[in-house]
């Protein structure tokens, strides 16, 4: 009779029940004085105990599937096994999504142009148009990379440059300070003037695919179901895993989070703050214009999951998660108070998080203050122990 068989279970149930009834009914026959009667009482009680314990053991074992057989229980199984390599590529047949992926470069450069600043011959650099292939997220994204003057010729090839990831929807704009050319020229100018130490700048849109600017792996606005899962856009994975891997493999980028910063326009504000609060082992600095983005953009409809809605609420994170080791700067065009994220951060942030706000004037080179502020934070940091 197997250890896990129903027959054994029922046998024990019947045995326990009949023993109990027998003891209760014939109680009086064992009630007499004398050693024999006492011994019989003890024996009958212990027999009942033993059967009930066995019954419990068999029931628990059946539920939890600890021991599969008597030989398993008594440890007489000794037959060895060997490690076998699964046939390579055996999974190729399960579906189109599972087709074998050729190993591809994490970054492909599609165009290169020198950076020149009119009237400032010392300012220089290289601007690359690139396509990232996220090897963990599966996402591809077009972007730009600014490389500072001397990057290619630098004799110290093992030099680690700090990295600024600019999250902006205005990359194509000729007028915006977040426009690719404008940002690259500004950085080249500041580096030439010694106001910014040489830095790699990656320019990307928050919106990697579809219509979502939140940079979340599973946006809360998605309608929820416990049915077949939608294929999510793993934007956090792209920004926090794929992007650093690409920059560290193909560029002379630092792997120290203290030397990685986020710079966002208002469209990328939530994305940058969200990454700083939940991926502080990748990004230690974030600079965003103040705005009303404590919640994911466009995600007013969070009726599917109250838990995800909370998790994605930056105010909730500040109130419930440990303070992350990040520095955040909010910029404002005019002195304002009120609905912005800056006030929430200033009110709730504690050590080791640092939050600053600054009121920006206007000038010929907007974002200069932001870039130099970031530069001070990501180059002043002494490398703190183990790199990522």
């Amino acid at each position, binding site marked *: 009779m197997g250890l896990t068989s129903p027959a054994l279970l029922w046998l024990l149930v019947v045995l326990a029940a009949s023993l109990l009834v027998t003891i209760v009914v014939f109680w009086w026959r064992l009630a007499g004085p004398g050693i024999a009667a006492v011994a019989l009482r003890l024996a009958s009680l212990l027999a009942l105990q033993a059967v009930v314990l066995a019954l419990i053991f068999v029931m628990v074992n059946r539920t939890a599937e600890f021991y599969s057989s008597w030989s398993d229980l008594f440890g007489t199984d000794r*037959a060895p*096994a060997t490690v076998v390599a*699964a046939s390579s590529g055996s999974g190729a047949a399960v579906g189109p999504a599972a087709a074998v992926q050729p190993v591809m470069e994490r970054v492909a450069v599609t165009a290169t142009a020198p950076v020149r600043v009119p009237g400032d011959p010392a300012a220089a650099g290289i601007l690359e148009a690139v396509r990232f292939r996220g090897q963990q997220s599966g996402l591809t994204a077009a972007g730009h990379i600014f490389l500072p003057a001397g990057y290619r010729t630098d004799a110290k090839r093992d030099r680690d440059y700090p990295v600024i990831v600019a999250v902006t929807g205005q990359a194509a704009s000729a007028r915006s300070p977040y426009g690719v050319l404008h940002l690259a020229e500004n950085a080249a100018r500041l580096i030439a003037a010694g106001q910014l130490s040489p830095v790699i700048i990656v320019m990307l849109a928050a919106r990697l695919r579809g219509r979502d600017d939140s940079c979340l792996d599973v946006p809360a606005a998605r309608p929820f179901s416990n049915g077949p899962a939608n294929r999510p856009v793993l934007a956090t994975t792209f920004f926090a*895993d794929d992007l650093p891997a690409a920059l560290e493999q193909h560029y002379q980028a630092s792997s120290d989070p203290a030397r990685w910063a986020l710079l966002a326009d208002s469209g990328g504000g939530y994305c940058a703050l969200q990454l700083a609060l939940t991926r502080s082992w990748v990004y230690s600095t974030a600079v965003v214009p103040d705005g009303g983005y404590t919640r994911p953009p466009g995600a007013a409809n969070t009726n599917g*999951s109250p838990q*995800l809605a909370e998790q994605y609420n930056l105010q909730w994170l500040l109130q419930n998660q440990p303070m992350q080791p990040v520095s955040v700067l909010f910029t404002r065009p005019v002195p304002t108070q009120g609905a912005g994220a800056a006030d929430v951060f200033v009110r709730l942030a504690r050590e080791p998080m640092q939050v600053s706000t600054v009121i920006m004037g206007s000038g010929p080179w907007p974002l200069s203050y932001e870039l130099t502020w970031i530069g001070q934070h990501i180059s002043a940091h002494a490398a703190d122990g183990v790199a990522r």
Partner: protein
Amino acid sequence: MGLTSGSFLILMVCLAAAGVAATVALWPRVAGWKMWHVGARLAMIAVSEALVIATFLVALNGYFNFYASWSQLFGSSSPVTGTASAPASGGALLTVTQAEPAPLPGAPLRSVPSIRAVAAGPHGIDVAGLGDASTRSLAQTGELLGISIHGRYTGITETGDYVYLPPQYFQPAYTRSRFPVVLALSGYPGSGWSLVQDLGLPTEVAALADEHEVRPAVYVMMNVSVAMPRDTECTNIPASLQVQTFFGEDVPNAIEHSFRVQSGPDGWAAIGYSTGGYCAVKLAMTYPSQFRFAVALAGYYRALQDSTTGILYGGSGTYRALNSPDWRLTHLPVPPISVLVASSRIGEFTYQGTLQFLRLVRPPMRAYSLFLPQGGHNFRTWQRELPQALEWMSARLQPARPAVLRAVH
């Protein structure tokens, strides 16, 4: 009185014996046929039976190391549904609270005595002065340390875990070497101690090292559940504990800052049994830049949710799917990791799921299997699989390189 303390078990045994003795003694007084006589008999049997069962469960719990304390069993201060408590700022990432020379092969395993707590400083843990043993003797045995880890990013603190440092860690030739790390995770319910005692990980490692079957590595043995009695399945629970981040970022961060270990993925492996096996594979798949190798003994490869876990995925099917190794294999790029999955052809409910997982693995991920002909979901089975699992990891992990002394001519 501790749930697993010997004195509590003795008390329970005494109570159970007293219950039986009282029943025997009072037996003649309720031998009549009045209604209350029969009722009293049933009540007496029920009480003594309950005491014996409770004693049995306490003994079983001690034997299997399911719940280490009353709070783990009933959940008192530990946040079951809430969020991680805010940490004291500036707290050390890792604290050593116990130290003892590691058990030699065949030696009986004792509990590890407590020491005055030592926190990891900026230069890690100075292991020279921890216990009573001299560095010279530790260079023969290695050392077993009781530790607690405080998660810098998640705020999760886990106590009652263990670190095994191999003898080489204390040998002069290795003073500048960085060792590979194996993160070992228990099942649920379990404890760090069940990896030491029930699985016998340090003893097996020492035995294999004696036979030169494994190279030296640091073993970190942890309870897979960070918030007993809740089963957290190594998941970043929305609006609650970020357990995946704890094991994927906080624990490697704390270990790399405390011990002389490698920091690249070639030097890190994860192994676990049951829930720990699921976690090991999930961690390697989601943190391939930290763990290049994973071993699952009787693991499963789907995201489960039941009465012991509570809501783990915020009610989102998509979020749940991201926690399923099977789903990730069919819907996402696969990472360049190697996994070894073990189960038994007869007696393991994980066998079919393991076969299914193996069918889904594709390059650049590599899979290896280890199937016993028979064996249940228990430590005896996992102990039989352990030597090959340890050798499999050791053959792949980047070894610690001893200093080479060259003769100068």
